[in-house]
């Protein structure tokens, strides 16, 4: 039996269906990532696995328990990092760590957590005066203080500082090696690609892809060539010359959706030479998770520069 099992999960808010028939499993010792644009149903899905939300239909099972009904039996085995922190605004990191230390039977050492999440300089600052990254790091430390078997990290790198990003990666690697089941949600492809053993792509409340990074890559358009050159090359002419589909992704950035054989590269350069077009660079490579995501959902993933959703201001605007 998998550590987390979700079967045909539906979550509806009145008429609106946020999650429409999601099924997946997540195993111990693995990082399972739910990737999707904002509003795809990531948080609703995760909150039903955390026990916050009652499924409108379907079943959720965590470590053998129904998280909504049996939450008190699960709380000592799970760790949660919420998007909004959820920490007393006047409490300092040191006080929060001591408080949470008191909740668990076998908590991790506080000084170890401080070092792991690099909170040394912030220990006496009230939570509300911490930077977004410091808040995220404290929230992460509190998620793992009880040595949980299952850890939920909801957008752990949203609005985080580079230091925090490294801390998140380090912590996730540690958790994995200790056999923890990590369920991560993110809209950041790079983090998903770097950290995940398994990726679920969620769009409009439905899973549109589920597999390892390799699975997802090979199921998609595969290898390609990218090159930069002045904008406005005749794409249909070039496509005919190369016998492959060419698209202009952004002004002056072209994508040739076919593997980079020496012959193809030769034909591309001679075509461009024949037109007297100056080429910036030519890169052969595998399609990125971004390409996969775009192909499956038909939309680009959001940029990283999302506002951190701490505090009341951003909450109201949601």
């Amino acid at each position: 039996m998998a550590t987390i099992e979700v079967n045909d999960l539906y979550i509806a808010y009145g008429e609106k269906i946020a999650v429409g028939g999601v099924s997946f499993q997540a195993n111990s010792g693995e990082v399972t990532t739910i990737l999707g644009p904002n509003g795809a149903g990531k948080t609703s899905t995760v909150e039903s696995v955390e026990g916050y939300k009652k499924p409108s239909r379907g079943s959720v099972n965590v470590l053998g328990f129904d998280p909504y009904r049996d939450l008190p039996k699960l709380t000592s085995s799970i760790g949660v990092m919420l998007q909004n922190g959820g920490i007393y605004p006047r409490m300092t990191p040191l006080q929060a760590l001591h408080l949470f230390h008191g909740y668990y039977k076998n908590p991790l050492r506080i000084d170890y957590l401080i070092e792991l999440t690099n909170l040394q300089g912030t220990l006496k600052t009230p939570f509300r005066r911490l930077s977004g990254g410091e808040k995220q790091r404290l929230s992460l430390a509190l998620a793992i203080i009880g040595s949980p078997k299952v850890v939920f990290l909801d957008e752990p790198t949203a609005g985080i500082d580079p230091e925090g990003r490294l801390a998140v990666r380090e912590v996730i690697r540690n958790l994995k090696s200790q056999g923890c089941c990590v369920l991560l949600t993110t809209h950041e492809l790079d983090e998903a690609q770097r950290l995940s053993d398994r990726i679920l792509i969620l769009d409009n409340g439905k899973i549109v892809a589920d597999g390892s990074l390799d699975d997802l890559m090979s199921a998609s358009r595969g290898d390609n060539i990218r090159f930069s050159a002045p904008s406005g090359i005749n794409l249909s002419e070039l496509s005919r010359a190369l016998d492959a589909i060419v698209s202009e992704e952004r002004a002056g950035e072209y994508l040739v959706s076919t593997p980079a054989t020496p012959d193809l590269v030769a034909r591309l350069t001679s075509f461009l030479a024949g037109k007297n077009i100056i080429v910036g660079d030519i890169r052969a490579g595998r399609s990125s998770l971004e390409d996969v995501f775009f192909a499956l959902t038909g939309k680009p993933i959001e940029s990283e520069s999302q506002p951190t959703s701490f505090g009341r201001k951003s909450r109201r605007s949601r």
Partner: protein
Amino acid sequence: MKPYLAQARAEIRLALTQGESLLVTIGIPVIVLVGLSLTKALPLPKTAHSATDFLVPGTMTLAIMATGMVSTSIATGVERSYGVLKRLGTTPLGRSALLLAKITSILVVEMIQLAVLAIIGVLLGWHPVGNYLYFIVAVILATSGFSGIGLLMAGTMKSEVIIGAANGIYLVLLFIGGIIMPISALPSALETFARLLPAAALSEALYQSVGVGGNIPVWVWLNLVIWAIAAPVIASKTFKWDQ
């Protein structure tokens, strides 16, 4: 037990380190007690032998109202809007231990308040007379009622609204709660209305039990018991843990 103790310690520390909260829980009651005892600017009940007979029980009422209703509603409202309550929901603390910790914190703060007001009262010449058991029962009933009102606000209103509403009610009840002047000094329609609210009942109970040693009227007990049961029940039915 361990999670409860950790939580109770944290709640007490938060309550005793919040400046604005200490102003309404201790600062204003002390200022009112000292100021009005010395100036005798407002009318006293006819049965009072001295200003402190009336003002010590009155400011104790103000103090209990401040802790139970004002501090509890504002603090818990902030916790709800910041997602603290939601986050605590997935820890081994549990809702009953959280509630117990909050009650513990309220009672600890109240003991400090009552001790401070009693000591200042005695320094001002107060001689407590009466029934301490009635005093304790009345304080506990009123704490339940006021905390229920505080949690009702915390669980249903936005935290910005709570701050205004709680302080507004505090101010209104200061005038019509038998705290700084007897409700008999109010216009009779207002006096009848005041008798329905928990502040006037508590101030009357405390005035009779430790102020002048008189009998506590039936309406006072009825009022305190109804608020003590109804407010927490309504709060628990309507409380939204997650904003």
